[in-house]
C-alpha cells in the first residue's frame, strides 16, 4: 500500500508456465478483496496493489494502486491475467470486510467513454494533419483548461472565437479582441514558458547524466 511499485523487471520476462501461474495463488485459491497482493507478470512487470476483485474462472485479478501521477484522489487500476503472472504473493490479508458496492451511473460512464474517444480521435486527426509536436502539446495544454477547442486543419480553434495557427506562438493567436483572446494568449504564453523550462531542465539533467556517466565511466 504504502509503496506502489510498478517496477518493470524485464529480466523476469522469462515466461512463467501456466501451471505455475495457476499454482501461483499460493496462499489460498482465492484472493480476498481488500488484501494486498504482489506479483510479476510474464513480461517481467512487477505489480502490487489491493485486491478489488478476482474472478477465478477467468483468472482475472483487479488491483488498485495509488495513482502513478501521485494524485491522492485518483488511483490506478490494474487488471491482471493471472495466467501470465508469477510470484504471486499476498502481502497481507484483508483486515476489513470490503465496502458495499455503490450503484454506478452508467450513462455518465458511457458519456465519458464517448468523450474520451472523440478527444483521442480529434487529437489523432490533428496529428495526422501534420501538426507539429509543439502544436499538439499546446493543444493538450489548452484542452486541459478549455474543453471547447478543436483542430481545424492545423489551426487550433478555441471557443470558436480564437484561432491559433502555426507555429502556435502568442502572436499567432488571432480573433476578436477581448478577454477571451487575452486569456488564450496568456495560456499559450505560459505553455511555451513551461515547455522551455522543461527543456532546460531536461537539458541540464541530460548534461548531468552525461557528466555522471562520463565520470563514472
Amino acid at each position, binding site marked *: 500500500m504504502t509503496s506502489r511499485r510498478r517496477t518493470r523487471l524485464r529480466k523476469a520476462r522469462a515466461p512463467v508456465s501456466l501451471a505455475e501461474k495457476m499454482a501461483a495463488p499460493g496462499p489460498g485459491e482465492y484472493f480476498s478483496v481488500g488484501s494486498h497482493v504482489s506479483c510479476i*507478470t510474464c513480461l517481467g512487470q512487477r505489480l502490487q496493489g489491493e485486491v478489488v476483485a478476482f474472478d477465478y474462472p477467468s483468472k482475472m485479478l483487479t488491483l488498485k494502486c495509488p495513482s502513478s501521477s501521485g494524485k491522492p484522489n485518483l488511483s490506478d487500476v490494474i487488471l491482471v491475467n493471472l495466467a501470465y503472472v508469477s510470484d504471486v504473493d499476498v502481502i497481507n490479508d484483508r483486515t476489513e470486510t470490503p465496502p*458495499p458496492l455503490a450503484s454506478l451511473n452508467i450513462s455518465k*460512464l458511457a458519456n465519458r467513454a464517448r468523450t474520451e474517444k472523440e478527444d*483521442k480521435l480529434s487529437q*489523432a486527426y490533428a496529428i495526422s494533419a501534420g501538426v507539429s509536436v509543439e502544436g499538439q502539446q499546446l493543444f493538450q495544454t489548452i484542452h486541459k483548461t478549455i474543453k471547447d477547442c478543436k483542430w481545424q486543419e492545423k489551426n487550433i480553434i478555441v471557443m470558436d472565437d480564437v484561432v491559433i495557427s502555426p507555429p502556435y506562438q502568442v502572436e499567432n493567436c488571432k480573433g476578436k479582441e477581448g478577454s477571451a483572446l487575452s486569456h488564450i494568449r496568456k495560456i499559450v504564453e505560459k505553455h511555451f514558458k513551461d515547455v522551455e523550462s522543461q527543456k532546460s531542465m531536461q537539458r541540464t539533467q541530460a548534461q548531468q547524466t552525461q557528466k555522471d556517466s562520463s565520470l563514472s565511466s
Partner: protein
Amino acid sequence: MKPQAGGNRKPGGSNSGAAAASGTGGAGGGVGRQNIGRGRNNAKGPSTAVALSGVYANMRMVHVLTSVVGTKCDLKVKNGLIYEGVFKTYGPECDIVLDAAHRKSVEPNVGPRREDIVESIIFKSSDVVVVHFKDVDLNYAKKDNFTDSAVSARLNGEHKEKDLEPWDGGEQHISGSMESLDTDLSNGWDPDEMFKYNEETYGVKSTYDSSLSSYTVPLERDDSEEFLKREARASQLAEEIEASATYKARVALENDDRSEEEKYTAVVRGERELHSLNRENKYIPPSQRNREPGMSWGAGRQNSPRLVQCSPGPPAPRSGPHDYNAMDQRVVNGGAHPWPSRCPSPSSRPPSRYQSGPTNSLPPRAATPTRPPSRPPSRPSRPLSLPSAHGSTGPLSTMPKRLSSEGPPRMSPKSQRTPRPHRVASCRGGGPPPPDYMSQGASVEVSAPPPTRNSSSGGTWSSVVSGAHRPRSPRQNSIGGGAPSPSCLSSPQAGTVPVDSATASTTATSPTAANPATNLEASPIEEAKESRVLEMRQNSPNANKENVKPIEASASIARSIGKGPPSMAPDHRKQIDNLKKFSVEFRVSLISLPLCVFRNSEKSTVDSTGPKVPMESTISEETSTAVSITPTGSKSATPSLSPSSAVPEQKRGPDVTSQGFQTTSSLANAAAKDKDEKEEKNDPVAESVRKSTLNPNAKEFNPRVFCSPPKPATTPTQTRPQGQPSPSIVVQQPPAVYGQTMFQMYPLTPVSPGVQVPHMTMSQTKPYRPGKGENASLSEFPNMPQQRPDQHHPPGASTMMHPATAAGPPIVAPSPAYSTQYFTCSPQQFASQPLVQQMPHYQSQHVFSPMIQGSARMITPPGHAQPSLVSSSTTQYGEQTHTMYVSPTPIPQQFPHPSSTLHPHPQHPQPSATPTGQPQQGTQHGGSHPAPSPVQHPQHQAAAQAIHLGNPPQQQMYSALAPTPPSMTPGPNPQSPQASFPSAQQAVYIHPQQMQHGYNPNHMAHVQQAHMQSGMVPPHHGTPSHPPTMMLMATQAPAGPQPGTLNPIPVSSATHYSYTLTPVQGHHQQQL
C-alpha cells in the same frame, strides 16, 4: 454494451437489468445477487447463461471494471505490445474492448496518428496480460457522489484530519475587544462609518445620497390648503386600504401565525356542522350516527342541521333511538311503499306522498306547512321519540331534507328506521325493550297523545283512535298484522305501543295523505300512461297545486290513518281476526261503509305498511313498530288509507300503479283506481284540509317516500317487502310528522263521506288491487289492481328504488342480498347471538306463521317470546340499522322491518284467504284485540323478531309474512266485504312482492336518496314509481310498458320481480 450495461447495473446494486446476471458472482456478497440473477436468468431463460457466465457473475469484478469504463488504459498483450485506448467494455469472458485504440509507439510524447487509431479492438482475455488504468477516479460514476460518505471519502485522501488546537481565549489579543463587542450597542457598522473607512483606507468615495434623489423626488411639504387636503386624502385612502378585508387577508397570509400543521394537516372539527355532518357521521358515535346519519342521509347539509335539531330532542339515549326510529319510520313511510300499499287507494297515496314528501323535497315543502300543524300535535310525542329532526322542527326540515336528498334521506330514514325498529324491538324484547319502550313508549305515548290531541283537534282522530281503534285494531290487525302483532305483543304495554302505532299511523296517514294526492293526480297520470316519474312529479306538483284535493284526500286518509293507526294499533292487534269486521267497523266508525272498504283497502295498504311498520317496529320495537304500523295501518288504512292505499300505490308507483292497472285490468282497474283515488282524494279532502295539505306533501313525499322506502329497503330483503314495510316505517316516522298531519287531517275527517264514496269505489278497486297484488294467493281482480298499486306504492317503488340505487347488489339478488345484508347486519350489531336468534326466530316465525295461520294464537306466544328476543336483537338492529345505513346492513334491517310490517299485514289479510295470513290477522287482531292479537302478535312479533333477529329470517318472514300481510291488509279491511280475505291474501302476495319491491325500493330509495341529494325530486318519483312498476311487473307482466319509465329500477326490479315472482313463500322456503 449490453453486458456492460448489465454489469453496470449489477455493480450499481440495481438487481434489475438482464445483465444483472453478472451479479451472480462467486463473491460472497454476490450470493444474493446470484440468486436474483438466477431467478432472472430462469425467467429469461437464454440470457441466464450469459448473465451468469464468466465475469458477469462476479459482482465485484463487474463493479470495478464498469467503474473504469471510459478511461484510457494501456493494455499489454502476451507478445509485449502495448495498446492504448479508451476502455469501452468487457465481455463475460473478460474480453476487453478498447475504443480508439492504437498501438503505443515507443516515442512517449508523440500522439497517435489518425490512421493509427482503430475504431475499437476486442482483446481476448487469453491474450491480455495486464490492463493498466491510470489516474482513475473510482468514485466518478458513483451515484452517491454528494453523500456525506462520498464527499468525506474523497477528502480523506487529500486532507488529513487537522489536529484540533485548543483556543486559549486569545488573551494576547485586545482584551477589550471582547467586552467592546458585548457593550457595543451599535448594530454593526454605521453607513457613514463604512464610507469613511473605505475612503480612508481605499480612497473610495461613496456617492450615496440619503435623499435617494436618484430614485424619487423629495416631498415638498408646505402648509397650503391643497397640500393638507391631499395629505388627508392620502391618509384616508391608506386607512381604507388597510381596513379592507382583502388587505387584511393578504396581510394575514404573510403574517399567519398558524403553523402549517394547523392550516393544512390538523383535523379541525366543529366548524362546518352541516357539511361536516356527513364527515361527522363517520366520526360520530353509533348512537349519534344514527341520528346524524339520518340527517346526513336525508339531506346532507340540511339534514345535518336538522339532525342537530333532532339530536337535541333525542338527547336521551332512548329518545335518540326513538328519534331514529321515528326517522326511520318516516323514512320508511316516505320510501315505504307500505303506505302506498296501505293507502293504495287515494289515502295510501297521500301518505306515500307525504312520505315521499318528506323524502321528496317538493312534497315535504308543500306538506311541511300542513305537517307542522300536524306535527305539533304529534310532536309532543314525536319529539320524544323522534326528537330526531323528523320530529317537530326536524320533521319539516328533515322531510325537506329527505326530499332534497332522497337518497340520503332514505338512507337516514332507513338507518333511523332500523334504529327505531331495534329500539322498538328492544323495547318489546325483554329487559332492553322495556327501557326502549319507556323511552319509545314515552315517545309513543307522546305520539299517542298527539293522536288523541289530533283526534281532539280533528275529532276523527279521537274517534278513530277510540272507536276506530277497535275497528281499526281489527283492521290494523289485518292491515298491519305484523305490526299489530308486535303491537299486540307490546299491547301489554299497549299503551305505549299503541301510541307508537298511533305515531306510526300518523306517519302512515301522512303518507297516505300524500298518497291520495299523488294517487289522485298520479292515477290520472297513470291513466295517461305518463312515465312514472312524470306521474310522480305530477303527483307531487298536483299535490302541491291541488293541495286542497290531496290535502283533503290526505286529510281523509290521514284521518282514517291517524284514527285507525292510533286506535288500530292496539285494537288491530287483537282484532286481526275480525279484520273484515274491523274494517267494516272502521269504516263505520271512521267513515261510512265505503270508507270501510277504503279502510280495508287502506288497511290492506296500511297493513302492508303496517306490516312494514311492524317489521320495522318489530325490528326496532316490535310493539312500538307494530303499534305504529298498526296505527298507521288503522289510521291511514282504515279511513282513507284503504282507498288512499290503493291510490298511494298508484301514486307512489304511479308508474307501477299505472302499470299495474294496465297490466292487471289496466283499463277498468286503472279507471277504478283512478276514480277510487280521486274519490279517496276527495274523501280525504272532505275529511280534512289538513290532511289534504299533508297529502299534497305526501304525494311528493310518496315518491320520495319511495326513495325513503328504499332506505327501509336498506334492510335488504325487508325492503322489498318493506317497500311496504318501509312505508310502515315511514308510517312510524311519519307518525311524528304525519301523525301531526294526520291529526290535522282528522279535523278534516268530515271529508270522510267523500272518502267513503271513494272508498266504496276504492273498495272495489281495492279488491282488484289485492287480487293483482295477491294474484298468487287471492286474485281478486279489483283487489289485484289496488294491491298492485299498493305494492307499487309502498315498498315496491321506494324499496325497489332503494335497492337498485342504494344497493345494486341487493337488487341483483334481492332476497340473497337482503339476507346477506341482514346477516351482515345482524352479525355486526347483533353479533353472533342475534343472528342465531334470528335464525331460530325465522324458523320459529315461519313455523309460527303457518302455525299462526292454523292457530295463530298458539304460535303467537312463541312469537312473542321470540319477539322479545327479537326485540333485544331488534334493539341491536336499531344499531345495526344505523350501521346498516352506513352500509348495506341498514337496509336489510329496514327491510326486515318492512317485511315484518308487511308480514303482519299479510297475516291479517291472509287470515281470511291465506291461512297464515288469516291466523296472523287473527293474531294481530288478537294482539290489538284480545283474541286475535295472540296469533297476530306472535306472527308479527315473530316476524318482527325474525326480522329483528336476522335479515334472512326476516326475509323469510317477509316472504311468508309478505303473502300474509298483503292478504291481511287488503283482504280484511278493504276487501273484507267482498273479498276482503281474498284481497287480503292477495294483499299478502302483494306484500311479498312488495317486500321484494320493498327491497328494491330500498335500493331505489338509496338511489332516490342519491337523487334527492342531487336535488332530483323527479328522479325520486321516477325511481319510486319505477319500483312500483317493478312490483307490478313482478306481479303482472303488464309492467312491461312501465318498465321503460322505470329504467333505473329495471334491473333491481327484475331481480326483485324474480324474487317477488318467485312466490314470496318460495323465498321464505328458500330462506327457511
